[in-house]
């Protein structure tokens, strides 16, 4: 059977695609310098914390009403999920984040923490930027 697309063509295609993806991965890792941690649950920002204003470490728990619990630990300049009862623990393994490079994502609990330039929630006594 004669191939409709040569194997060599596929290989070149995948190599090009891989190069493109690596470029994209490098590109997205170079954005964001935000210092305000926005905690999102189901797409809604439930808490905003200005990490540069934190002087003493503390922690709080986020529950989703479906049995998921994430213990979030805040320290000066950084934030992490310290404990979680989700099955994969990806959020815990992500560890501390201190820049806008990558978010903490917990898929089972539909929770994400992202460092941004503006606060998305009024909790924590921040001046929320609206509009």
């Amino acid at each position: 059977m004669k191939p409709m697309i040569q194997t060599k063509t596929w290989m070149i295609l995948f190599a090009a695609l891989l190069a493109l993806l690596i470029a994209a991965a490098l590109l997205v890792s170079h954005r964001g310098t935000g210092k305000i941690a926005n905690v999102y649950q189901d797409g809604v920002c439930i808490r905003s914390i200005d990490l540069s204003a934190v002087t003493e470490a503390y922690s709080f728990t986020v529950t989703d009403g479906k049995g998921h619990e994430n213990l979030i630990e805040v320290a000066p300049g950084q934030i992490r999920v310290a404990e979680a009862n989700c099955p994969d623990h990806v959020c815990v393994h992500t560890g501390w984040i201190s820049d806008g490079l990558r978010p903490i994502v917990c898929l089972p609990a539909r929770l994400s923490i992202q460092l941004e330039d503006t606060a998305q929630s009024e909790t924590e006594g921040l001046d929320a930027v609206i509009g």
Partner: protein
Amino acid sequence: MKVKRLIRMALCTAIALTIFMIEARIPALAPIPGMKLGLANIVTVWALFTLGPVDAAMILISRILLGSLFSGSMMSLLYSLSGGVLCFLLSLLLRRLVTEKQIWVVSILGAMAHNVGQLLAATAVMESWTVWYYAPVLMISGTLTGAFTGTAAQVLYLRLKKLRAIGREKP
């Protein structure tokens, strides 16, 4: 004939499920949501080329449903299902396009479709595009693991075909 087909599908589901459960025990290399080896896809790809689309689809759906049930997280069912269905549909389209020595191509593109499906589901569930930050890394790993599982499926396909032990009965 009908019983034989049923047993064959049940056997494939059991094999896929075993691989799936063992893989779930392997700790993740990097803390990236949704990243995995996808070894169970070897069974799906092989089934698609040997047993045909209907049988392969049934094996895939059974494996995903039972896998989520056994691993005890119903939330992951949504991600697995949307990824699995998208991957399967693309593989179905590509099936006619490749020769039996290019089965790995189907697996790579299938893995990428799986990633896109997962990310779409996560976007819908979390109502946020945050997860797409992981898209490039996820798809790089998808390309590599897809190439690996695809090659495995291709070798399996060619060798089992030589044995003529399993396959679709002639009508």
